[in-house]
């Protein structure tokens, strides 16, 4: 797949079911009032993301990609390059300033999910998306049981049978190697790695078509990291979920992602097949990134 195909604009006007699971076009998020200089005065070429005219922060601008079911896209880049903002806009934690996003499973991709009203947006989030936050505290309610956290997603998708919910939650947690005897304990009493695995179980509970993973393995020790990554590979293979993996760890991206976007100062500076990007980086920033790891 080429970079041209990677950048999403392949929306089929005929209404047929598209081949992609998610299609994002021109996603932009500004913090501040914004002016007409914002986009031209920021970006990797200027090496800044704060507009000198109006002090607006350009968190991300013009981010486009599309992703097929069962495939994984990596987004790498330095801290503050807008990776998390992209995920949070897609998940609905914040509203983007501009851009569109379409999901195959939402009206066959005919409608921009940012245009959906609050109730629809909530249903998209509950039924079609899953999110794993960098910090478990953001994605879990620490005061309700691990089982209850997973159940929250199931209840949001209208599961109404306690026995069935417990069975599903138990099997997901089991798969994440969270001991079943701790299912009714609160995550506040879990280790960081275990909390993160509960979060993954929660994100996957409703069988989402797209899962967004934000720095899932940072903050975990290497052996636990390996366990979580194994698990993600397994899921990728078995469930056909499309995943967007945000990471500053190139090793994680190399392992999980067929394709990768490199972000800097809120812009995508390079995108394509992961191996190609890591072996033959074109953009100076990517070269720096790759060389500083090797």
């Amino acid at each position, binding site marked *: 797949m080429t970079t041209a195909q990677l950048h999403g604009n392949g929306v089929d006007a005929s209404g047929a079911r598209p081949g992609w699971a998610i299609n994002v076009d021109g996603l932009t998020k500004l913090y501040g009032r914004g002016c007409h200089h914002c986009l031209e005065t920021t970006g990797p070429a200027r090496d800044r993301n704060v507009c000198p005219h109006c002090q607006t922060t350009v968190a991300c601008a013009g981010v486009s990609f599309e992703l097929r079911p069962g495939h994984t896209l990596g987004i790498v880049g330095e801290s503050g390059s807008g990776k998390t903002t992209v995920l949070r806009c897609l998940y609905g934690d914040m509203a983007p300033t501009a851009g569109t996003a379409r999901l195959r499973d939402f009206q066959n991709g005919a409608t921009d999910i940012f245009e959906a009203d609050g109730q629809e947006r*909530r249903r998209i989030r509950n039924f079609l998306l899953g999110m794993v936050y960098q910090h478990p505290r953001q994605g879990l309610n620490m005061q309700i049981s691990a089982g209850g956290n997973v159940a929250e997603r199931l*209840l949001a998708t209208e599961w109404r049978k*306690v026995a069935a919910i417990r069975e599903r939650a138990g099997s997901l947690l089991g798969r994440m190697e969270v001991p079943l005897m701790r299912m009714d304990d609160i995550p506040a009493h879990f280790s960081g790695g275990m909390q993160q695995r509960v979060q993954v179980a929660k994100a996957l509970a409703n069988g989402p078509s797209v899962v967004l993973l934000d720095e899932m393995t940072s903050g975990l020790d290497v052996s636990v990291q390996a366990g979580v990554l194994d698990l993600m590979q397994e899921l990728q293979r078995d469930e056909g979920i499309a995943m967007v993996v945000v990471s500053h760890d190139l090793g994680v991206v190399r392992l999980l992602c067929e394709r990768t976007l490199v972000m800097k100062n809120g812009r995508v500076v390079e995108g394509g097949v992961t191996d190609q990007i890591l072996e033959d980086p074109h953009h100076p920033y990517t070269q720096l990134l790759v060389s500083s790891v090797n």
Partner: protein
Amino acid sequence: MTTDVREAAGTVAGLAETFSYNYAFLDELSKKAIRRAILKGVAIPGYQVPFGSRELPIARGWGTGGLQITLSLVGPGDVVKVIDQGADDGVNAVNIRRLVERTSPGVETTADTSAATIIQTRHRIPEEPLRKDQVLVFQVPQPEPLRSVERREAETRRMHGEADYSRMWVALYEDIVQNGRVTRTAGYPVVVNGRYIMAPSPIPKWDIPRLNMAPHLSLFGAGREKRIYAVPPLTSVTPLEFEDYPFQVEQFYGQTCLRCGSDTTYLVANPTETGTLRYVCSDTAWCDAALATKGEEVRA
């Protein structure tokens, strides 16, 4: 000045005459605003409509929400019944009834459920089935059913707007996991018309099925929290329940009312001097009527 006023007026009714209080105490514009809130509530069953709660001669938290609804609806020819936990003779009920009587000429008050056109209630629905020409007005202390899972008002409003009720369900799930059943009793959350989760004021679970598809109009007023909401006639009201843990009303395990012998009504247990419990009907008017039909003397 104060002494003069007392001498001149003597009673609330006298005061009303002396100072020309408006009919039903509230001024017409306030009543109009409240009726508009009621209409909006009826149009969106279960949705909490904010309203400008007025000052009344009773303190907020003592039934001012219900009272403002009652006062904005009454007119000559209306018959008002006020109950407090099912009883017509509670101090709060008596005071509210007197205020309505003295400020609204032409309005009668009664203890007889079937004779009433407007029934203001705290925490109960009368046992006698209501008719479509009757209005039931609830006094509501806490109108927000999601308050137990979310403290922030802005957030609960968003949750209602997006029908994002999973946290309420999780609270019930956790209750079942920890206690083997849903331990909530009064004020059990319900879904109105398949959309909004509503706090049915703290009526017992017993009364919840009696709200479902009821022929009468139910209006809920929270004076302190400044919210009005409604369940229109023939609207579905369903308790939140799991398929394998169905909703259950209170059980009395063979107890009957010590006064009228009823085993089909909601009973309250009063402790006696000997430490035992004495079960009686919570709805005193119903109990008295049952005794009267038995030809028995009404015992206190």
